[in-house]
């Protein structure tokens, strides 16, 4: 017994060192729930508040760019106004409002919640954004985030008033995407090299790809509504050893000056993911 105490006394710093290292590595492996349970929510609140203070000051420098984005979006929305289209008198007027369903038995599947970006990184290998909107304001894990220009990422952590978004510029991010003109689906990833370009993999060689083609979100994604802008094809390589193209995609979103984004709630997200995970279990 005495020897044990002596051992601990002699190697106290080394044991502390080992303990802290193990603690760090355990936290880093996202599978463990300890990190989420003990730290994530409170730490998120604190860093979110500090980020917000800084952003209050910094946002003035980006006003010009935000105005440009908002005008561009307004123009797009105005072009889709009902009043722009001439309707013959006999047609019925279709109004989709924010009620759960209308008289045509249509259900609202996607709901847009505005949120302000208070913190973001682009230079690391694992980039995240912090938004000022949390579980008290209806944000849940797994919701998708889009900017006026294109998609941004997926919510991975939620605290009371803030949430953290894994941006497309994260080495583990994976989004189902397709070519807008011939609907071939593949997955969008980031290779960590350049924050302006993403990689679209697994597009079959049967697809007709040209430089400048638009890439949008596919119908298969549980997080994202279909056909939201991701980017345009900047370059593509034909790999003779496989049956797939690998496309280099220029992001539509400019991750450097994000200020306001929309969090998209999918009313059937839980149902869809539950079913998909159930199928996986049955396969094993």
């Amino acid at each position: 017994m005495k020897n044990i105490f002596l051992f601990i006394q002699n190697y106290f710093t080394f044991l502390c060192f080992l303990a802290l290292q193990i603690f760090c590595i355990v936290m880093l492996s996202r599978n463990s729930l300890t990190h989420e349970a003990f730290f994530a929510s409170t730490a998120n609140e604190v860093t979110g508040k500090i980020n917000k203070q800084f952003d209050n000051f910094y946002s003035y420098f980006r006003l010009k760019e935000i105005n440009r984005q908002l005008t561009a979006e307004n123009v797009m929305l105005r072009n889709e106004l009902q009043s722009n289209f001439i309707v013959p008198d006999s047609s019925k007027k279709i109004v989709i409002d924010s009620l759960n369903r209308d008289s045509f038995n249509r259900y609202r599947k996607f709901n847009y919640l505005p949120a302000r970006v208070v913190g973001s990184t682009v230079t690391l290998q694992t980039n995240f954004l912090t938004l000022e909107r949390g579980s008290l304001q209806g944000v849940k894990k797994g919701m998708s985030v889009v900017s006026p220009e294109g998609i941004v990422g997926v919510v991975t952590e939620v605290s009371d008033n803030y949430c953290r978004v894994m941006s497309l510029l994260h080495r583990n991010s994976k989004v189902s995407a397709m070519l807008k003109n011939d609907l071939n689906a593949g997955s969008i990833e980031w290779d960590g090299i350049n924050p302006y370009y993403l990689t679209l993999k697994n597009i079959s060689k049967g697809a007709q790809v040209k430089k400048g083609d638009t890439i949008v979100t596919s119908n298969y994604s549980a997080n994202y509504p279909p056909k939201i802008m991701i980017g345009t094809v900047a370059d593509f390589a034909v790999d003779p050893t496989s049956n797939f193209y690998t496309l280099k995609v220029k992001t539509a979103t400019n991750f450097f000056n994000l200020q306001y984004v929309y969090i998209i709630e999918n009313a059937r997200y839980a149902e869809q993911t539950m079913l998909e995970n159930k199928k996986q279990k049955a396969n094993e």
Partner: protein
Amino acid sequence: MNNIVKYIIRFILFIALQVFVLNNIPPLHQFIVPYLYFLYILWLPFNINRFFLLIIGFVLGITLDYFSGTPGLHAAPCVLIAFIRPFLLNLLIPQETTEQSYVEPSIKSMGWAPYSLYVFLLTFTHHFYLVLIEWLQFGNILFFLGKVAATTLISLLLIFVSEMLFFRKAKFRTNA
């Protein structure tokens, strides 16, 4: 008391600089990430308790981690260099001279060559371990080697610049 306040303010400044300035610099290349925050550990006083040094290293790393959303990624290398630091200082400082009477490591208190070696070794260890963890999660060998080399060079440059800009008064330890 005065010293503790000074070190707390320095802590906040280093974290703020890393989070709000260096992490927001437009990327030049995948391999180049400017890190400076760990200089805080390098500038802590000579006579600090080893256990506290570990704890301070951990707190510094974890604070940065919560801002960048990667819990543990920066904390692990910080704890490592905090653990190595005392051994390295013992090796590099000539024991018999009066130079031990300075408060913290600097060019003046250790001399050009030992101080540069001290900074280089700890910077290299920090980046090596940091990139190693990243590399284990994703990436290839070229990413690992290139990023260690590039980040170490950038960090050394930044440390050099900050040594020139912020001239620290080399205080003697008031023992009497």
